[in-house]
Structure formats: C-alpha cells, structure tokens
C-alpha cells in the first residue's frame, strides 16, 4: 500500500490484447443487431411496417414492441425509487406507442452483420404523429406543452430539505445576496460506447452475457427478471470496458435485454455495439440545471442562512431516480457550515436524452452554486476569497459532522473526517495565492489580462450497500482474488493486488484479480460514486485477512506452533525467529483433504499421508480450501475533499480563455497507489475543463441534437488541457473502513467549472453565472458590459 506500483493491466492493453465487448468471440459466429431510433423528439407511433425487412438477404429477425411478451413488454425498471419521485416514468425496451426523445429505440433488427442490419433498419417504415417537443428547462417549467400527458407541469419530483429556518435567517442577516446560475448539459462520452454480446446455451439452459457495464450483477438481475430466467442460469461477464464515467451504470439499457432475448430465440450469439451517433442520442447525458441562490451573511462573510432552489433537467425518463439532484442539493454545502439551510428542487421532464450520473454526478453543479456564492460574498464585502471560505469551514475538531440532511444513499449526510484549513493552506502555497497580485501587475504592464480563482468541494464516496471479495490461495501458492464490481480503467487489478499482497504477505506478482464476473462473485453492487477502492478495497482486505487467519490456523497445526508466533513473509508461513516455515501453497494442499491425488503436490493431502485418524479430516467450523470471503458494508459514505485553483489569461481581442496554471490539493485519505490517484485527478480535471470551456449539448427547439459527433461536440484534446496539473495530497484517513481510504475517482471534475468561472470573473471583472463559457460567450458578456 502507498507505493506507485506499475499496473498489471498494461501489458495486455499495450499489445492489443485487451478484450472489450466488441472483441468477444462468443464461440460461434455472432449475429449483429442494429436499432431503429426515433427521428422525432416527441411523436405518437401510429404504425410500424416491417414487411420489407425480412426480404433483405442476411436478416434473421426484426422485433418491435408487439413482439415483446411478459416482463419484456413492461416499462424498464425505475432503478432507484424515491418517495418524492411521484411521477417516475421509464421507456419500454422498444417504444410502445409514443417516443419521447430523438434516438429512442423503436425496432431491433438482427442480421448476419452490422452493415446488413443497418440496411434493414432503413427499410422499416414508421408512421408518426409528430407532437410538439419540450426542450430545455424554461420550456419544461412553463409547461405549455407536456412530455408525458399524465405528468402535470412536467414535474417528475419535487424535494425539499431544511435545517433551521433559512428564509428567516436570511431576512435577519446583516447582508443578503441573490444569484441566478446555470450549467449546461454535457455527457460522459467514453471512447468505447455501449455494447452487449449474448450466447444462449440450449444444452445447459444457460445464458451468458458480456456487456460494457458498470454493474454486472445489476444487469444479471434485470436480464433474469425480464427474460423469466432463474438468476442462477444467467452469467454476466464484464470484459475490459473502454471508459464509463457513469453512463454505463444505467441498466438495463434496452439492448442489454434485447440482445439476450434474441440470442435465446434465434439460438445464435447476438452482438450489439452502438456507434457514436447512437451514443449521443440514446445514451445518457448530465449536468443541465438552473439555480437560484439566496444567502444571508455577517460582516466576516459567515453564512447565516442559505436558501437554494434549482431546476434539474432529467430528460425524457427517470430510470436512475433522483440521485443527481439529491447529490447537488446535499453536496453543494462542500466544506462549509451553511447556518440555516433550505434546498428545494424540481426534477423536470424534457423531450431529450435521459439524464443520469456523469462523473461528479450533480456535484459540479452544487459546487458551482456554493463557490459562486462564496465569491459573490467576498466581492460584496471586499474581502479575500480564501478568507471568506475559511470563515465558513467545518473545523477539524468538529468531525464527525452531521449536516442534518439525508444523502443520496438514504443515510445521514455525516462527514467522517477532514482538515479543510490545512487543505486551503496547501492550495494557497501551491498556486502562490499571495504572489498573484504582483504577477497580475507584471502581466498588465505587458497588456495581458489574467485572473485567479479557487473552489472547494467535499465528495461523499464509497456509498453502500456493500461489496464483497473472495480470496483463494491455489496449491501453487498463487492467489486468486475476485470482486464483483466492474472496471473501466481505474487500475483495480493493480490496487486490489497491492492490498492482498500486503495483508496476506505474498509477492505482488503472485496475486491475480478478477472483477465484474458474476460466476466468480455473484454478490456485488457496481462501480460508481467513487466507491470501488473504498468498498471493494475494504472487502478485499477483509477477505485477505480471513484467508490469512485460516492459513495461520493450518500452519499452527502443521508446525505445532502457536498462531501468535507465526508470520507470513513472501508467501511462506514461518515461526518467528526459527527459520521453520511452510509455503502457503502447501497449506492450500493440506486445507483440502483428498481421496484422490492428481499431481505431486496433492499426494500430500490424501488419506494415508495426512491428518489425525481420530479427528474429522475437515475440522468442525472449517471448510475445505485455503480461501476467504468477506463483505464490507459501512453505515454511510466516507467524505473526501479537495480544493482547486487556476490562473487564466483572457485574450483582449478574441476572448479566448487560456489556463496558465492549474493546482489541485486532494484529500482521499490513505493512498493505495499514488500514481493511480494522480491519474484519476488528471483525467477528472480534463473532463472538468471540457465542461467548463467546451462541452455542451446543442439541442434545437424541436429536440434535434445538432452536435451529435466528435467533430461538433468539443471534447478536449491535449491542446485544451493545461500543460501541468500541479497536485499536492493531504491524507486524512477515514475512520469508517479498515484501510482509512476515501474515494478518488470523480474528485478531479467537481470544482473545475467553479474554478474557471472564478478566474475568468477575476480577470474580466464581469460576473460569470453560466457555464460552460466559450470565447463567444465571453465576447458577448464584454459587449453587454460596454452597452
């Protein structure tokens, strides 16, 4: 633990040996699926004519809603129900009689290859009655038109939480401010889109599904329920996944059900791999919110009351419930004590792609609201922005700190540990906050305009309910580890092997980790909410400890020694100070009393070789095998924190915004592998820069997505990312898990829009209230100021 160990994943990835879902060979040649998607944002389907489709050579089947039966004909599940989601709506696997966004699946064609399947899709004729579309939060709020006829006001949910009487506290405060803020839509856009392969084995009556998911157990449960199969007959294997960032936690996507359904019906493996346009118009987006903040504060900028209302665009359906807006509403508090607090949101339907978590999951919006408020207070009082923040921090001696709110996991929003003043001090040093004034003057002399900004966040990581792990020592001494959550590039195989190697006392190279395979670990939740290291890391640690305890018991018996005198070093259990020892591989042999030998090693475990003939071969309360299974299930999340600062330069003519410096101070408790954590921060910051300066979903008023390609949706290349991302770590261990760790996966993205907005505002002297900000946007703001 704590070492920048090189990744075990890399050898395969560097040589073309990765196995992503489209690389899977399902045994016999797969058929390929293509989907007919709605060209309209809102329409009734009057008729679907598929008569021309089966004439296309190589086409095997075409499915529409009418071909779905039983649970498949019901709407897709609301994965996370919530009492406030009074009007939850989900789509059907194939549209029934209405489509609610461009890209919604209508028909599913299976053919010899994808080219032929797409040819066949083109032959399907659909008669639509086009309905007016609801696009954008303003249109949803005005409710002149409805997305769903039976959802009044387009309001899926309204949720309010209060602590104290915020309106009264604000009214009585010495100073008051109001802010109106806005964040646009973006999306995860992993370079690998969604994909699913399924094979039905009629002899065994089993279904195998390979899918690019963040929750293999979730897909398994959904497929079993929808196809009417016992869950024991469904195996879901998550192969290498080419990035997730949230979009692959949603399940089951229609194709994750349709592919196995078709594979079973056609008795042939079936594959679906979406293309990039499909990803833009049928996979999930996030971020879009409009916010109104009212705040009351004292002469030091200390919050007395905070009252936030926001409107969250959740798109056409609500399969993921209210997770994103709940996170915004709770996590916007960051490291601060808000005084009295009231937050209310409406989660609104629009005729656009569904909105589900994208790295950060509502936190970037919440951070934007809080940090813009902090900057506004500092500007109003003429105080330094770091001072105002420091005045509001939860102090190190106030942990655990219970905000009195309910978090996204239904548990208390109770921060476990942190040291925000120390974090801020590190950031001030790293970015040279106090030296910026002279840098600004130097630049001004050269005719350059620069600004500095900062933002702070707290992130609840490692939410439950649980993760598990299985550790098994093979008779060769090699260690096999399985955990059920999935991997999309986070280096789990390396990090979890580090944990096991340390705890079990074996060489790192002897540990092999498998993730996301329900055959190996059927009890698991998934990879989201920066939870893998905390949840599976802790479960892996506990399972390794159980295995170690068993190894010590076996060795104590074999060596006739006391367990207290034993240690495991380099894969060998020894009696301290004696040189006596026994390899773990031998203990694995002895742990499994055998009737039949199959190799030299196993002879040692047969009935004439081992054991006291007066005792049962397997002791009471023991099981065969040198292995251990354990689970980790904390009461609530652990709260990581961090602070970012940036120096930007704005071009006086073109309004181009250039990031000159970017600094990160990050506290995710103890580090398993600092190299991996820094990589996560780099990637998060890059996505944050995309969200702050470039990425937006350009819907027109009819609900057409105008920039549904990598040519038009501007994701950062290296040229858009600051050359150096300066990082400093603070390590405040979590008391909630045995490793003292907190999640790190999402952190990098959270404060970036707030930081860049603050820096641009500082450079230009113009309030920045909406992100992302393009050069055109900044140019327009300058023009408005002049006018």
């Amino acid at each position, binding site marked *: 633990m704590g070492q920048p160990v090189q990744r075990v994943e890399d050898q395969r990835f560097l*040589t073309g040996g990765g*196995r992503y879902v489209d690389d899977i060979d399902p045994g016999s040649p797969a058929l390929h699926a293509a989907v007919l998607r709605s060209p309209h944002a809102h329409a009734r389907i009057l008729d679907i004519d598929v008569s021309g489709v089966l004439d296309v050579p190589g086409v095997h089947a075409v499915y529409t809603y009418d071909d779905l039966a039983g649970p498949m004909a019901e709407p897709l599940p609301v994965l996370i129900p919530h009492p406030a989601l009074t009007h939850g709506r989900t789509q059907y696997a194939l549209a029934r009689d209405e489509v609610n966004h461009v890209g919604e699946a209508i028909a599913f064609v299976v053919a010899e290859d994808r080219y032929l399947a797409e040819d066949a899709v083109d032959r399907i004729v659909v008669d639509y009655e086009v309905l007016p579309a609801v696009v954008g939060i303003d249109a949803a709020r005005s409710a002149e038109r409805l997305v769903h006829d039976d959802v009044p006001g387009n309001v899926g949910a309204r949720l309010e939480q209060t602590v104290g009487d915020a309106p009264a506290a604000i009214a009585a405060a010495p100073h008051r401010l109001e802010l109106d803020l806005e964040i646009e839509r973006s999306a995860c856009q992993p370079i690998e889109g969604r994909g699913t392969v399924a094979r039905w084995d009629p002899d065994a009556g089993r279904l195998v599904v390979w899918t690019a998911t963040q929750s293999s157990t979730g897909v398994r449960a959904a497929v079993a329920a929808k196809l009417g199969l016992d869950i024991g007959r469904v195996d879901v294997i998550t192969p290498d996944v080419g990035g997730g960032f949230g979009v692959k936690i949603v399940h089951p996507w229609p194709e994750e059900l349709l592919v196995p359904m078709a594979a079973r019906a056609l008795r042939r493996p079936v594959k679906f791999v979406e293309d990039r346009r499909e990803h833009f118009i049928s996979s999930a987006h996030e971020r879009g919110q409009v916010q109104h903040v009212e705040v009351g504060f004292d002469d030091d900028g200390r919050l007395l009351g905070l009252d936030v209302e926001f409107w969250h665009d959740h798109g056409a359906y609500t399969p993921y419930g209210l997770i994103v807006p709940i996170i915004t509403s709770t996590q916007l508090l960051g490291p601060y004590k808000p005084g009295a607090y009231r937050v209310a949101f409406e989660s609104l339907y629009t005729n656009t792609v569904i909105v589900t978590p994208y790295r950060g999951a509502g936190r970037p919006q919440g951070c934007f609201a809080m940090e813009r408020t902090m900057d506004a207070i500092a500007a109003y009082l003429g105080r330094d922005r770091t001072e105002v923040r420091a005045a509001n921090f939860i102090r190190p001696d106030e942990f655990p700190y219970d905000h009195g709110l309910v978090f996204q996991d239904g548990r208390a929003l109770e921060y476990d540990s942190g040291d925000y003043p120390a974090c801020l001090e590190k950031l001030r040093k790293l970015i040279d906050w106090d030296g910026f004034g002279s840098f600004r003057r130097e630049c001004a002399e050269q005719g350059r305009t620069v600004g500095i900004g900062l933002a702070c966040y707290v992130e609840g990581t490692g939410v439950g309910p649980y993760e598990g792990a299985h550790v098994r020592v093979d008779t060769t001494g090699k260690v096999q580890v399985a955990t059920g959550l999935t991997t999309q590039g986070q280096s789990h195989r390396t990090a979890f092997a580090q944990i096991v190697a340390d705890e079990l006392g074996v060489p790192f190279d002897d540990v092999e980790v498998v993730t996301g395979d329900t055959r190996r670990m059927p009890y698991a939740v998934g990879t989201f909410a920066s939870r893998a290291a905390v949840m599976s890391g802790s479960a892996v640690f506990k399972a390794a400890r159980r295995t170690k305890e068993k190894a010590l018991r076996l060795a104590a018996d074999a060596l006739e020694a006391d367990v207290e005198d034993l240690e495991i070093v380099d894969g060998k259990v020894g009696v301290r100070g004696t040189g006596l020892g026994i390899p773990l591989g031998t203990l694995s042999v002895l742990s499994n009393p055998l009737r039949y030998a199959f190799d030299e090693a196993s002879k040692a475990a047969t009935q004439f070789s081992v054991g006291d003939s007066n005792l049962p071969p397997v002791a009471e309360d023991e099981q065969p095998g040198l292995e251990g299974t354990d689970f980790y299930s904390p009461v609530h999340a652990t709260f990581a924190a961090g602070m970012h600062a940036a120096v930007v330069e704005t071009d006086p003519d073109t309004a181009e915004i250039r990031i000159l410096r970017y600094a990160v101070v990050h506290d995710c408790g103890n580090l398993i592998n600092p190299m991996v954590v820094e*990589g996560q921060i780099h990637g998060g910051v890059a996505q944050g820069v995309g969200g702050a300066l470039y990425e937006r979903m350009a819907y027109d008023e009819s609900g057409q997505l105008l920039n549904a390609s990598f040519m038009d949706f501007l994701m950062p290349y*290296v040229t858009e990312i600051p050359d150096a991302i300066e990082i400093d770590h603070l390590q405040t261990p979590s008391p909630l898990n045995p490793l003292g760790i907190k999640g790190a996966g999402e952190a990098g993205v959270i404060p970036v829009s707030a930081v860049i907005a603050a820096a641009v505002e500082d450079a230009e002297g113009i309030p920045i209230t909406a992100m992302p900000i393009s050069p055109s946007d900044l140019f327009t703001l300058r023009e408005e100021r002049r006018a």
Partner: protein
Amino acid sequence: MSEALHDVRLTVNGVVHEIRVPARRLLSDALRHDLGLTGTHVGCEHGVCGACTILVDGGTARACLMLAVAARGCEITTVEGLADPDGALSPVQRAFAECHGLQCGFCTPGFLTTVTAGLRRDPSPTHDRARDMIAGNLCRCTGYVNIVRAVERAASLQRDVS
C-alpha cells in the same frame, strides 16, 4: 440481392492475408472482424478520435476512414505489430506503462501507433512538439498529462537503444 465481393490481399504486421469483402467494408472492420486483430479500436467511426489509428506504409491512417479494398497492396502495422517478434515491448509501449499513460486502454492503440510514427519523424521532440504529436487523438481517461510524459520518455528510451 447479395453484395458483390472483392478479393483483397492485405499485408498486416508482415503477414499476408487474403480476404473476400464487400466494397463498403471498412478497413477497421476487416482488421478486427475478418483478421481477428481486435487491438485496433473504433471510437467514433468518423475519423476524429484516433483510436483506430494504424500505420499504412509507415504513415498514420484512420482505419475507420479507409475501405478494406483501398488497402490492397499496402503494408499495414497495427498495435499487435509494435512489439518485437520475441514479445519485448517497444520503447513507446514501455514508456506508456512506466508513465501511467493509459487507464481504460481503449484509445491506447491509436496513441501507440501515432507516437511510433511520430518519433520516427522526430526522434527528439521538444516538449511542445511532444504535445503536438498526440494532438489529434482523444483520450477521456488520462487528461493527457501522462501521455505527454510517455512521449518524452519513449524518445529517451529510443535514444538509449540506438
């Protein structure tokens, strides 16, 4: 009516392959699904992300923008052909591992081919030229910081070898 098929002879990583494909079959699909060389990944199918970058007669090309029939007679190198015949990783591959220049690994083959060709043209790039070398490839995981380091490290490893 079935599609007309065309005989295409491709030389990939030094091995000659004969395939029969429709004229519209993309080179990326031919490499991946007809030849089983699945290391070349497809991210956007419109030539923007660079994940499918291969070397065609030594220069970089986007396999999703070429038809298989157009690659007749070309010498193609994919990620599977970058390591030495004995399996030893090339300096570029080693540098990516050392510098943690990859996370999910999906865009990585396109970066490796791009940098391999780039360092042939410019064996000792300045820092800015190292950044420019990868400026046409998208990565959603790494934020590019460690990829730029990997380019510089690869240049250094290559100099040590030569």
